[in-house]
């Protein structure tokens, strides 16, 4: 199978998976015991009002009709209206999404900056104390409740010591740059507002560290494993016996091949960062998808729940797809099976 057929096949498969996800989320959110209308109107609402709202939202139709309606609207890019914010869900998602992308991307940079060097140290000093320490560091990272780490760091570094800014994307006194991409760092760069740029980067630091530390563990682990495997191979022995410096062997010969599996893990981690983002955003008052979805989940605003879940699943699947293709591209030995 050549690369093109592989990509097309994976793409078709992804569409099936996404359809399945629509079904799963639809079933979860429509066969629920929770009563969203009751939750909004309160127990004092008259039965007529409840009935009117039910009809307005189409809840009185049979389930399969509601599903077909939803699918048709979905194909037109309409995810329905949020009961909680009274906005179209698509609009809400577009508004909250950039903040999450900004956070997740800078967290990814942190994760790579922590994970790869630690993985290398761990592999080179296998079973010695630097290895033990970096493994503990990584394991503590995956075992850490991110919402708690965020809280503690805010308490110590912002409230007690005042070296880092508090929650939010900018200091209260600094006006937001005109919204172009929704990423404050990029927007302030475009509008030449360097004060806002520096301030937003500063605000990004703590949440990115919290989220990036959590994500760095898997990168550390895969870099260590992959590098150890490569270092055992014959071509490395050859390189060493030619008398090349260890540094050259490590960075030019070994690392290149070891970073292939690391790349795929980085891609997969990006998808799962969205998960950590839900918790990090709650702590840092970050106006992103995570906070939006938590609010939607708590108030059983299920069109918004379905919309966010779908969007997250879409990003997650796309990240995995890109990773698979990249993998096949980077390593010609993979037979795209």
């Amino acid at each position, binding site marked *: 199978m050549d690369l093109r057929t592989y990509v097309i096949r994976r793409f078709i*498969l992804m569409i*099936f*998976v*996404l359809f*399945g*996800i629509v079904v*799963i*989320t639809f079933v*979860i*959110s429509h*066969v*629920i*015991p*929770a009563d969203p209308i009751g939750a909004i109107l309160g127990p004092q609402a008259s039965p007529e009002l409840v009935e009117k709202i039910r009809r307005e939202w189409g809840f009185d139709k049979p389930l399969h009709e509601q599903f077909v309606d939803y699918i048709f609207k979905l194909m037109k890019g309409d995810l329905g209206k949020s009961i909680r914010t009274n906005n179209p869900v698509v609009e809400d998602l577009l508004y909250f999404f950039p903040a999450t992308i900004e956070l997740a991307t800078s967290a990814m940079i942190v994760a790579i900056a922590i994970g790869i060097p630690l993985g290398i140290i761990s592999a080179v000093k296998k079973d010695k104390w630097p290895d*033990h320490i970096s*493994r*503990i560091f990584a*394991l*503590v990272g*995956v*075992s*850490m*409740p991110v*919402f*708690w*780490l965020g*809280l*503690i760091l*805010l*308490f110590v570094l912002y*409230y007690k010591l005042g070296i880092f800014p508090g929650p939010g994307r900018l200091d209260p006194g600094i006006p937001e740059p005109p919204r172009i991409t929704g990423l404050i760092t990029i927007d302030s760069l475009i509008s030449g507002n360097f004060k806002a740029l520096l301030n937003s980067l500063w605000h990004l630091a703590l949440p990115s560290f919290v989220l990036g530390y959590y994500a760095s563990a898997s990168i550390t682990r895969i870099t260590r494993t992959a590098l150890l495997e490569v270092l055992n191979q014959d071509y490395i022995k050859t390189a060493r016996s030619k008398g090349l410096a260890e540094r050259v062997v490590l960075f030019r010969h070994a690392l290149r091949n070891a970073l292939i599996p690391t790349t795929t893990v980085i891609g997969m981690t990006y*998808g*799962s960062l*969205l*998960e950590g983002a*839900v*918790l990090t955003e*709650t702590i840092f008052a970050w106006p992103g998808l995570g906070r939006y*979805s*938590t609010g939607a*989940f*708590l108030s*059983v605003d*299920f069109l918004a*729940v379905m919309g966010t*879940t779908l969007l*997250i*699943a879409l990003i*997650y*699947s796309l990240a*995995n797809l890109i990773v698979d293709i990249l993998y096949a591209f980077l390593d010609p030995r993979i037979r795209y099976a």
Partner: protein
Amino acid sequence: MHEVITLALMDYLKSEDFRITLYLVRKSPLTMLGMTLTISLILFAILAPYIAKQDPIEQDPSKRLLPPSPEHPFGTDQLGRDIFSRVIWGSRISLTIAVIVVAISFSTGTVLGIVAGYFGGKVDELLMRITDMFMAFPRLILAMAVAAALGPGIFNTVIAMAFVSWVYYARLSRASTLQVREEMFVEAARAIGASNLRILFKHILPVTISPVIVQATLDMGGAILTAAALGFLGLGVQPPTPEWGVMVSEGRRFITEQWWVSTFPGFAILLATLGFNLLGDGINDILNVRSRR
């Protein structure tokens, strides 16, 4: 039946196999640490009524938000409850949730996985497509969606978490089943007329189980963390139950002045999860060493 098991266990404890395992565990300080943490957690959970002398739920307005002291080693919370007692009782909640979630997903996933792997064909294809869909979600998000739909509570938390975890066991045991189903010993069992059911559970299950056990150990840590996250977000266990995530969330309001309310339960989550992760990592290493022998 009882005696047979006891005898087999005694045999195993005397065997070289067990001594090697023990040696490998002792040689790895990290695994020892993980084991210590895990065993302590289990002991805390069992002995909670004896260790925590104060009622974890009863409120005492005269003792609101007291800092740590000999009488209240972790201080008290906004309702005057002793945080140390609540953290100790919390180990019961977390451990119970994790054990039940892992037990449900382990058994469902493993059975579905080996059946699909063994029979192949349409059943297998269907199962794999279903797992694809589940894996296209970040786990916590799906668990949040299910928990939100079912409504909060300890029972629903368990269901939501099991609902999203079984796929990993199904995948793993399917993959190992595929590897062994053409082996001679399966062929031999078939030749002497063993039923499919017997082959599956007597011959295939025992040899495919070890990677699944590693997954289960690591999952225990993950389950404690997820349950705490759901509790923290308000979608899981509800107050006044002394659940660690709920406790961190309740302490958020007081973090600036009364840091102890959130800090200690958070530490408990970290240590409990870390214990299982260290242990799972260690078991993984040991199984790898053993398979290389």
